[in-house]
């Protein structure tokens, strides 16, 4: 069936639209050659956008199609394949990374929207030789089976403890005016955006509790 969900752009709109496009070139890409005497009837739309990010403390410069999600930029362009693509629709949390101190679903955001951002992936939290306490805790408490959701779980968990420390309330926080604690109930609610098909949830809560309590 034909999808007519959006009115077709008519010829006039297309021309108006085309005429405005150089703004893209102006703000994002190398200026185009313009000739005032012979302006191009349909300006060329820059397909590649330059994006500079700090990823795990390193400056990275990319030229990307604007459709590139932050997840695909990390995995396909920077070859940081620790971050996983699960559902690709923001439902499973496998793609969770920390951007400017906050966890987000990297599949549901465009890389071009994050110029200048500080991105931390599971590779940036620790290395096999020098693991982050949360990584150590997941190993100690057996917080995974197949491991596919684990990088997202770990990034999310690190950010969750920070959110609790900042006093950000959750759905299960009893009193909005009282600083939340890192109870098992709080951790379960705050981790609900990270699914684990193996069902390692109980051990994941133990691992995060261990770090929260300083006994990982």
């Amino acid at each position, binding site marked *: 069936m034909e*999808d007519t969900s*959006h009115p077709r752009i008519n010829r006039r709109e297309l021309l108006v639209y085309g005429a405005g496009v150089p703004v893209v070139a102006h703000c994002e890409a190398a200026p185009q050659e313009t000739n005032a005497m012979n302006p191009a009837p349909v300006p060329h739309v820059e397909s590649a956008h330059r994006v500079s990010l700090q990823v795990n403390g390193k400056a990275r410069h990319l030229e990307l199609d604007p459709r590139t999600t932050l997840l695909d930029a990390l995995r396909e362009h920077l070859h940081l394949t620790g971050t996983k693509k699960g559902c690709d629709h923001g439902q499973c949390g496998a793609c969770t990374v920390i951007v400017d101190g906050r966890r987000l*679903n990297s599949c549901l955001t465009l890389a071009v929207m994050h110029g200048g951002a500080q991105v931390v992936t599971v590779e940036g939290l620790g290395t096999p030789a020098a693991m982050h306490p949360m990584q150590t805790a997941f190993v100690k408490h057996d917080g995974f089976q197949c491991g596919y959701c684990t990088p997202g779980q770990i990034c999310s968990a690190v950010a969750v403890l920070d959110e609790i420390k900042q006093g950000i309330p959750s759905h299960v926080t009893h009193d909005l005016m009282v600083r939340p604690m890192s109870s098992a109930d709080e951790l*379960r609610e705050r*981790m609900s955006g990270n699914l684990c098909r193996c069902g390692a949830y109980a051990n994941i809560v133990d691992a995060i509790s261990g770090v929260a309590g300083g006994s990982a």
Partner: protein
Amino acid sequence: MKSFSYERARTPAEAAALAARAPAASRFIAGGTNLLDLMKLQIETPAHLIDVNGLGLDRIEATAMGGLRIGALVRNTDLAADERVRRDHGVLSRALLAGASGQLRNRATTAGNLLQRTRCPYFYDVNLPCNKRSPGSGCAAIQGSSRSLAVLGASASCIATHPGDMAVAMRVLDAEVHTIRPDGGTRTIPIADFHRLPGDSPHLETALEPAEFITAVTLPRPLGGTHIYRKVRDRASYAFALVSIAAVVQRDGTGRLAAGGLAARPWRTDTADAAMASGSKAAAEALLAGAKPTQENAFKLVLTERTIGAVLAQAKG
């Protein structure tokens, strides 16, 4: 995802003006948590994206009227965590925290939350008719699986619901939506008038005109009372509401309430507000007047009454 061109707006007025060049083909993008999902499914296929993240509309400020002005780009996490919101407009914090996941709330914005599209399964299935996605194609939901769908304000064209929680709390607080238009003119839309009922044009979901841009949402001065948001859903977390009730209840049992999950807009009636002191049965009857459920979602009427009952009991302490 269909290809699109991308640019950043520098001011709200510029954002509206940029969109006005080709309103039907352009979309503003802020958090993108709903829009990009829909673009991947090719339910939304904009030719042009206008990134509005750099506009500085990310502050919450006190108003001269004693209320709060919430910038359009304030993230759901920040709005829920703001001390003034937690203290004086608790129902709004509660509603936000009942929605989505921590990751999504960190990105999703105040204006974007108001503009999120329905989660009707037939809107999402591009192989089936949907008057909202494809005007004139029909509604597969009315004869289909309608368990999650509307019981109030629906039409023969569409029985989709507004899926959000935040707007339900804003409805009970009598929030106002502030916008700027491509000509630079501004206006204020009461939240009661912001979401449209489907009628025979369910693809038109809000009172916004083409290219009109939301700059802020304001809350009037605090209402006092006990603030409650009760959400009933299939899972304990990270699921859309079957029914939700936002309520502000005063000591004498009077107050106001709005419901989510029942219609294409948060549902509130003066008659239900007036009936609250008489108990949940009276309030539910008043709120649900004119309800036309399907066989599959008639349970929502009973659930609404029971949820109001739970809210009123909680308010009594």
